[in-house]
């Protein structure tokens, strides 16, 4: 297993180099003069020159990339053209906030989604099943920015229970995490339900039941664990999607995360920060995928990563 993890980590290197080239290139190929765009309409020619010099825009692309990648390997992502602060400082100030938000959203999604899915599967076509599946449909379909505003109106303006935005206490976390988590909860509920139903039809479940096992043990010990594999896949992918959804939720709830930083930086044409943020998210995504694959092995002993042997 450790060998597998190391191999996967090594494989991530070319992926990340590819990402760095892509990010580097996309920003360089934006039409027009980035120095002019950064400097703005009031800027003097001297200042535009200064920006161009800072961003090495007069050098060839290969020189620019070489400088970029050597700095990157030394942990230097450059400075934000907007704030003048090191990009690494900008990113590491914000990234933990996004992780907190996404992790809380995932927690809500997992608890709500798994419970709803299991109950729906075991009480098929009951009122609960129909209601929760309808709720899940709405949850998947509702755009997060709309849902966020509805929550703000209900819980902050009308009921006055929770703050409508900002960061500070645990209360500030509830609405954004709920907004972000509900769509994922809906998806998890639907997948869990269908996966459970599939497993519950298997012969070994009939065997377990005929052995006289209590239904609870059949459901949780025998069926649930096997039904989890597709759910974990979806959850892994969803974590990446959550980071994307965080862009919107962080904007609606003024949550100082990396999504908002990216939006602000794109609007300010702050290329070094945009580059750094995309790269950081790519690294994170690669790691999440690795974790998901490792969890498979834990859930299903038939999947082995140690060597080619099948046990």
């Amino acid at each position, binding site marked *: 297993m450790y060998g597998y993890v190391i191999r996967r980590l090594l494989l991530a290197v070319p992926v990340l180099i590819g990402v760095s080239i892509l990010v580097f290139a996309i920003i360089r190929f*934006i039409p*027009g003069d980035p120095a002019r765009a950064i400097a703005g309409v009031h800027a003097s020619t001297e200042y535009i020159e200064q920006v161009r010099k800072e961003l090495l825009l007069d050098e060839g692309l290969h020189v620019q990339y070489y400088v970029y990648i050597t700095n990157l390997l030394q942990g230097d992502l450059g400075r934000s053209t907007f704030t*003048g602060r090191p990009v690494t400082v900008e990113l590491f100030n914000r990234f933990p906030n996004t992780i907190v938000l996404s992790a809380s959203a995932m927690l809500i999604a997992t608890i709500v989604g798994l419970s709803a899915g299991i109950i729906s599967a075991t009480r098929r076509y009951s009122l609960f099943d129909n209601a929760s599946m309808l709720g899940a449909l709405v949850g998947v379909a509702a755009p997060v920015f709309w849902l966020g505003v509805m929550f703000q109106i209900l819980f902050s303006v009308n009921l006055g229970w929770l703050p409508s*935005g900002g960061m500070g*206490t645990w209360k500030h976390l509830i609405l954004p995490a709920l907004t972000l988590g509900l769509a994922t909860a809906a998806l998890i509920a639907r997948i869990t339900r269908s996966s459970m139903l599939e497993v519950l039809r298997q012969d070994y479940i009939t065997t377990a039941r005929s052995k006289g096992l209590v239904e609870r043990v059949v459901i949780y010990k025998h069926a649930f664990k096997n039904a989890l594999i597709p759910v974990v896949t979806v959850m892994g992918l969803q974590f990446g999607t959550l980071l994307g959804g965080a862009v919107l939720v962080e*904007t609606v709830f003024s949550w100082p995360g990396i999504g908002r930083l990216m939006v602000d930086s794109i609007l300010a044409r702050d290329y070094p920060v945009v580059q750094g943020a995309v790269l950081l998210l790519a690294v994170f995504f690669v790691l999440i995928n690795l974790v998901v694959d490792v969890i498979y092995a834990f859930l299903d002993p038939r999947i082995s990563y140690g060597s080619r042997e099948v046990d």
Partner: protein
Amino acid sequence: MKKYLALLVVSALLFSVLIVGCGPGEEAVAEGQDLVIAMGAEPENLDPLKMMSAPAATVAEHVVENLIYLAEDGTLKPALAESWEPAEDGLSWFLKLRQGVSFHDGEPFNAEAVKYNLDRFMAKGDFEGGDAAVFAFLLGRVTEVEVVDEYTVQIHLDDIFAPIASHLSHSFIGMHSPASLEALAAGDYVEAPIGTGPFKYVSWDRGEQFYMEKNADYWGGAPTLDSVTFKFVPEAGSRVIMLETGEVHAIMAVPPTEIDRLEAEAGIDVVFQNSVRVIYIGYNLEDDLFKDVRVRQALNYAINKEAIIATIFQGVGEPSSAPIVPAIFGYTEAGPYEYDLEKAKDLLAQAGHADGFDMELFHPTGRYPQDATVIEAVQAMLADIGVNASLTTYDWGTYLDTVIVPPDQAEHDAYMLGWGTVTLDADYGLYALFHSSQWPPAGNNVSYYANDEVDALLDEARVTPDRTVREGLYRDAIDIVWNDAPWIFLHNEGQVNAVRSNVKGLIHHPLENLSAWDAYIQ
């Protein structure tokens, strides 16, 4: 394995609680004299070298003061300089500084501090060879800052330049404690400003808020408010909600669609204020199409500015009545060109274009509020007099590169741009846009306008210290420009803030600053 997984989940959760717990830890609802204001964008930093936005100016002005303060009525008021007088030959200015003022770190404010700050801003003196400020052009005429005695500085110019006092009042030329600037690490910019202002910097949580507390020793008398917090809330709808729930006392930039609703709500006041920016469509005057002044005027008469403001901007803003807005020193009411289709058609016919013509109109998308929508309205209105405008738009950077070019490279017949006269002095609004020396690449006279009379008036206004005489010169220049119509004069942008009714004394400045030093909560 299971145990490890559980451990991992638990520690992740603990970690998250810890991080969230590290915030200010208090509800944002203010009690007593703690004012909270929500603004849309966050300042880049508060360093005179790098500042370039209104949010930065708004926040900085509470902590760091200028030599001269530009009041919301356009008058210049003494701040850290008690008086400013030109020398006999007009080639230098003497500034008498306020005595007995200290920076928040206890350092004295004096002529040396002024020299230090201005030299740093211009990259002159000890800062020669370093990077000058983004807005260093404001002091482009200054050759040297001389310390005459402890409380007098003499500012030397390379030529007589009357607007220098206005330029010194610009929000980006604040006086920081030299010791605090020296303490900055190489490459770093001011994030924790140390000035002389009515409030002292306490903390800045990026992406969240900027917090400051009152300066009890303020030379102008301590403010009533104990603290001011600027929260950064990018989403306009969220700002409105925060005002409604009472989480903040005031919000900046109310979206037009919410104005009616907020006005109807008890306990909330909606405040309308002018801005300093004009939006216009400039003609390419090197183009044969627009050589005839009747054509240029005809298009002005064909645009219904009132309708654009009423429908696209929900009544916020006003039709342009001069190439600069009323808040600016030197403004004269010359217009607007009233909407008159018959007159427009007559003028076109007289100019030999009875059947109209085709033109290429370039415009940005997303740079100015509703820019593309406005252009579509203009296109439809021009069609009424037979002028068929085909539209071209680019990304902002490309757009500037395409439009701000010497005449032989111009691809457009007309272009849309805006200009904010951020010094509130007509010189910055008129010289840069209408003086014939300012054709690109030298400047921003993108219409290639050239009128000897206007040149002479603008030149003279630059070297005339008497403000009344200057006003007269600008009046004449504006009248000529208005009748020459090098632009289709569109509208002056407006700004809308909203404030809880129990908050008094906020200053809503045309520069889009919101100032709280005179404010208090009832």
